[in-house]
């Protein structure tokens, strides 16, 4: 089924293959509906609750008031700024290094951490294991980011458990764009969420079985979320800041740009005006491309849909942008294949098995432009 | 009286599953096997899975029938689950002649399918609360796990104010509340978040 036949929301452009999307009787999607519902929430009283949580954690007098999971992207940068400047908490900033951070993003991190003045801890997993996990994950899910999804979510929690820090504050709520949780639900970032959304339905124990004895369980420790018992017994609370404030990406991006000199970057497969989303990862373009191959939509659909929802873009213009930008194979895809040791045929065989019904996998022919920092990616990644 | 939740232990019951569900909610329940432990509790759960008759038999032989009977309209909060709800009535077509606790006048009758044969209501279904009062966390949008072949058709004492589930030609009373008692036909301990929520509301009921 070509993209033209996928059911799209009558307002935004999200198709029926978007994770957990449903449509109401008028054809309006659940993401649009949730967005409307969000504006009816009593954010003031939530703000008061958040301030109480901040007071409670400060009164414990620990070495740190909270852990802030940090990549340096727009959400974690805003969250860190808010926690330090507004809530006035002392954070331990924790970052999982998935191996693919881009230069502009690393410069942003350096600037932000120095300007705000915070303690920072980072973890980089074994590169050999990462590459094997990327291949295994790609084979079984058409998504090579398992090590990143699991590591990014596990490392800050493990840090909180090991150092007995009772609070972990994340950024955007999953309810912004998906229906895994109800909009007005105070969901935690806990084992249930990890299993429901984060780990692609594969825990570290499961991955061990899938890799058929090539690893020991301890090799997968960095990708293991702490157990509910470990978290509950220490009374650790872990939630997205988006539970307590009306998330406004544009406002937040403007804030970090002006207050912290945070800079945007160009991402493969999206119009250049969207210089603030997903600028962290070298593999973002390839990742979005694989999503397009599986589900028939990708990053440009997502970003234009947000603007349409907020009344900042006409639906027709959005559609034009989508057909211009999503129909391109990223320049970096070859680099990805070289890194993992995959041929074109092997990739195609994998992708054939990964189609999400009813999308039947139209393949783009055009190739995207070379990213400005591409040569650095080659240097950093192809180390043998 | 301090809050203490007791689960009546029956072989014809699934007390272990209920205990585990409460544990997941952070509630440490005690196992009730005799009058002594029964009397310590502020909240009592009677989970029954087998036939009307076998639950009554067991309560009688464990000498719990009479003490339980006295709990009606007392300060104790009582929850009858599945067969545990059914035995709060007068009797059941399942075991004619066997007397229930008699708190309510209902008689349990067999579920019949379109062909007129006995049927089981086994699976997930929704509950219609309609205009009825709020009963624990029950809502029209939730789904619960049912597993029974006899049902309560009406609870006069509750004046039609209860949750219902339609199945074939039967209108099943799926949840009701009256005085200090809640009757639940489905299995909250097998109904995931929505079921656990129901147990949580019961435990917090003062």
């Amino acid at each position, binding site marked *: 089924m070509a993209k033209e036949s996928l059911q799209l929301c009558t307002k935004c452009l999200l198709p029926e293959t978007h994770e957990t999307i449903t449509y109401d009787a008028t054809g309006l999607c659940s993401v649009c509906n949730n967005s409307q519902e969000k504006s009816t929430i009593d954010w003031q009283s939530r703000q008061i609750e958040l301030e109480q949580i901040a007071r409670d954690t400060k009164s414990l007098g620990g070495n740190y008031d909270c852990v802030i999971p940090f990549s340096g992207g727009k959400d974690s940068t805003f969250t860190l700024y808010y926690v330090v400047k507004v809530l006035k908490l002392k954070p331990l900033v924790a970052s999982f290094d998935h191996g693919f951070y881009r230069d502009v993003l690393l410069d942003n991190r350096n600037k932000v951490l120095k300007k705000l003045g915070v303690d920072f801890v980072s973890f980089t997993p074994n590169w050999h294991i990462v590459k094997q996990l990327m291949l295994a994950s790609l084979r079984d899910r*058409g998504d090579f980011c398992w090590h990143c999804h699991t590591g990014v979510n596990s490392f800050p929690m493990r840090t909180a458990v090991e150092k007995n820090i009772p609070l972990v504050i994340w950024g955007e709520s999953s309810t912004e764009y998906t229906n895994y949780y109800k909009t007005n639900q105070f969901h935690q970032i806990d084992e249930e969420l990890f299993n429901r959304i984060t780990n692609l339905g594969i825990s570290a124990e*499961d991955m*061990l*079985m899938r890799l058929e004895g090539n690893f020991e369980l301890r090799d997968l420790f960095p990708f293991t979320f702490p157990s509910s018992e470990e978290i509950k017994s220490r009374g650790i609370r872990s939630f997205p800041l988006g539970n307590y404030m009306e998330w406004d990406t544009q406002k937040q991006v403007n804030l970090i740009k002006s207050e912290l000199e945070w800079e945007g970057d160009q991402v493969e497969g999206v119009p250049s005006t969207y210089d603030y989303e997903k600028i962290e990862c070298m593999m973002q373009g390839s990742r979005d491309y694989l999503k397009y191959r599986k589900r028939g939509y990708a990053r440009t659909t997502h970003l234009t849909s947000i603007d349409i929802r907020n009344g900042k873009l006409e639906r027709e213009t959005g559609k034009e942008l989508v057909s211009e930008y999503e129909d391109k194979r990223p320049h970096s895809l070859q680099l990805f294949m070289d890194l993992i040791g995959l041929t074109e045929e092997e990739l195609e065989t994998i992708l054939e098995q990964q189609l999400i019904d009813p999308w039947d996998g139209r393949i783009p022919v055009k190739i995207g432009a070379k990213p400005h920092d591409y040569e650095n990616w080659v240097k950093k990644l192809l180390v043998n | 009286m301090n809050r203490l939740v007791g689960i009546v232990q029956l072989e014809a019951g699934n007390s272990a599953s209920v205990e585990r569900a409460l544990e997941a909610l952070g509630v440490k329940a005690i196992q009730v096997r005799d009058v002594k432990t029964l009397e310590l509790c502020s909240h009592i759960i009677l989970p029954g899975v087998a036939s009307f008759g076998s639950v009554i038999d067991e309560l009688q032989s464990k000498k719990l029938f009479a003490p339980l009977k006295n709990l009606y309209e007392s300060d104790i909060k009582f929850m009858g689950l599945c067969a545990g709800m059914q035995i709060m009535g007068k009797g059941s077509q399942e075991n004619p002649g066997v007397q229930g606790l008699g708190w309510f006048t209902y008689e349990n009758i067999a579920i019949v399918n379109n062909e007129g044969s006995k049927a089981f209501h086994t699976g997930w279904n929704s509950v219609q609360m309609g205009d009825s009062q709020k009963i624990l966390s029950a809502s029209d949008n939730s789904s619960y*796990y049912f597993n029974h072949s006899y049902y309560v058709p009406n609870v006069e004492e509750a004046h039609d104010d209860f949750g219902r589930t339609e199945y074939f030609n039967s209108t099943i009373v799926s949840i009701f509340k009256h005085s200090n008692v809640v009757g639940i036909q489905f299995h909250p301990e097998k*109904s995931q978040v929505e079921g656990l929520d129901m147990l949580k509301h019961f435990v917090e009921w003062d």
Partner: protein
Amino acid sequence: MDTLFKRIVPKILISQNANLQVIGSITTKEYEKFRFIGSPPSQARIFESNMADEIMLLNLDQDLIDLEMFKDVVSRVSSEIFMPLSAGGGINSIDMASKIFEIGVEKIVVERALQQNPQEISKIANRYGSQSIIGSCTYWGATSLPIPPRLVSRGVVTVDALPTRLASMEQIGVGEVMINDASRDGTRRGSNLVALREALNITSLPIIDSCGFGKTQHFVDSFNSGSSAVAVGTYFAFVDQSFMQLRSQLANHGIRVRLK
């Protein structure tokens, strides 16, 4: 009218992993063991977090995984979930069944015992109720090919045998039937709708359709044809679609599923 929600039932198929010396969860292809895909309690935990409808745990290695070991796995899986659990694999006596029920299993799944020990199964139905038993029948749906000998010796029958099998299951006293097309098992090319429709004509018991599910449309077709439930072993193993995601898609197709 049958108002029950349609169910999707992930199957956790257990087998002994010699390398790792653990009992793992596996997928099969045409009823041959295919790949290890996880740890049973971990998979159960993941399905619970996804609000799955029911879990079916099947022992594929009855020679290596005895009753005690099986009970241990059942127990560990049961402790992860707050939804109905079915379990099967070599259950052929009321004694075995009662030990399995005791650890928190709602229904047992039986196949060979229906042929070899039907009276025992009837005894179980009498004591625990017919709704506590799922009768399973595995057939070879690829009528243009002969049944592989390895499957004949395991009791897999031709499609023609389905009517008799279903009738005898009703007589024995099962509460639900599960039909499995071994030729489609693990292939993800679609389930056997012809056999399903025939089965629906023969029995009024709820039918669990199994084997071959690979796309959302397959589920839609099976449910629209009249199955009460779909059991899947391979579906969630190799595709980027979780239980909750599938459920949303089915709701969009008008299938009466539980929706969070």
